[in-house]
């Protein structure tokens, strides 16, 4: 027996009515199992934390004498942040490192550069740009610029390892974990997480140390070469240093607005 059109429409209508009737039931079920944190709880910052409107670093290149000084900064940073030591160049992870003048300032070198600048290593790291290209490149917003103080930070939870940010960064400040980093960390700092295979990492200007009132690890280990402070405050040490001395920034013509300055 072939069902008539009339019967078919009746059954279709009845099914639709049953389906619609289920909507409020589903909604009630969804509402009863509600998730969320306790409304009475609050979040705040540590009172001793350091705050600024624009964190910046000033490198006094005149004080650099040896590669050991740079090594001390690298050591301090990489120990605090559980940065693995991978000897193979293409797997290397670095947050801060030393490089020569012609690499740090590729548009400026010439044959008659001063002996001192020619020989020393420049400490380089993430420039925490005011107009960061990595943030624009990131498809998941894992890399972002913190509104309160301009730090360019990473949410490793969200990084999908696409490496667009590495292509976008003109300073090579970012490294990718091609391997599980844990076996290559000599001494793990329990206070700071490690990273996992497949995420990008970079210098964070020690956001976790600033939050508890400490200066960045490299600054503490730098013997006065590095000065860290608030460029938004005209009386801060960094503002004063920049006011009184001639300084360079890396690749300024790209318009990224680096926050790391070099007094040469």
């Amino acid at each position, binding site marked *: 027996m072939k069902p008539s059109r009339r019967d078919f429409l009746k059954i279709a209508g009845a099914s639709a009515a049953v389906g619609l009737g289920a909507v409020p039931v589903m909604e009630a079920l969804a509402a009863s199992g509600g*998730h*969320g944190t*306790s409304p*009475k709880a609050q*979040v*705040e910052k*540590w009172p001793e934390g350091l705050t600024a409107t624009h964190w910046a670093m000033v490198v006094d290149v005149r004080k650099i004498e040896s590669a050991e000084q740079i090594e001390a900064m690298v050591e301090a940073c990489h120990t605090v942040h559980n940065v693995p030591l991978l000897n193979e160049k293409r797997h290397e992870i670095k947050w801060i490192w030393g490089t020569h003048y012609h690499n740090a300032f590729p548009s400026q070198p010439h044959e008659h550069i001063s002996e001192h600048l020619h020989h020393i290593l420049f400490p380089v790291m993430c420039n925490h740009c005011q107009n960061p290209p990595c943030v624009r490149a990131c498809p998941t917003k894992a890399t972002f610029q913190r509104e309160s103080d301009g730090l360019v930070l990473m*949410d490793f939870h969200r990084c999908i390892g696409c490496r667009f940010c590495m292509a976008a960064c003109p300073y090579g400040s970012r490294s990718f974990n091609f391997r599980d980093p844990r076996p290559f960390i000599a001494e793990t700092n329990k*206070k700071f*997480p490690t990273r996992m295979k497949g995420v990008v990492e970079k210098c964070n200007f020690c956001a976790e140390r600033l939050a508890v009132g400490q200066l960045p690890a490299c600054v503490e280990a730098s013997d006065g070469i590095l000065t860290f402070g608030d460029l938004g405050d005209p009386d801060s040490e960094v503002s004063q240093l920049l006011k009184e001395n001639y300084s360079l920034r890396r690749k300024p013509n790209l318009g990224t607005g680096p926050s790391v300055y070099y007094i040469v």
Partner: protein
Amino acid sequence: MNDKGKIVAGLVIFLVMVTFPFWYNLGKAAPAPEIVLSAQAKAAGACVLPKAEIKTEHMQLLDVWRDTVVREGQRVYVNAEGKKFDMSLSNTCLDCHSNRKEFCDRCHTYASVDPYCYDCHIEDPKENDQ
């Protein structure tokens, strides 16, 4: 309806196969895991949230903590009792619950969830200190 027998037989076999896990495991429910509180956790007496809440909602709490710490730079959690906590999985949660195998893992295994927190967050900060 010439193939009535085949269709009905097919439907019966289908139903039996679909419901197989249910009636096969009937009455054989695995007992809920017993979790062991570490000495520090026992001494502390209370967690960040009341026990029932933390049991069902610790994942949501950690998710909120993650965003608040990483994105907003707010690192202190003040609970309903006014007690302050550093919002850190490694340094607060796992510092107290330092027995991951007997505490976290037992429930996670039972519920068949595999959180990837420990890929980066170092569990058990004290035990590994030596």
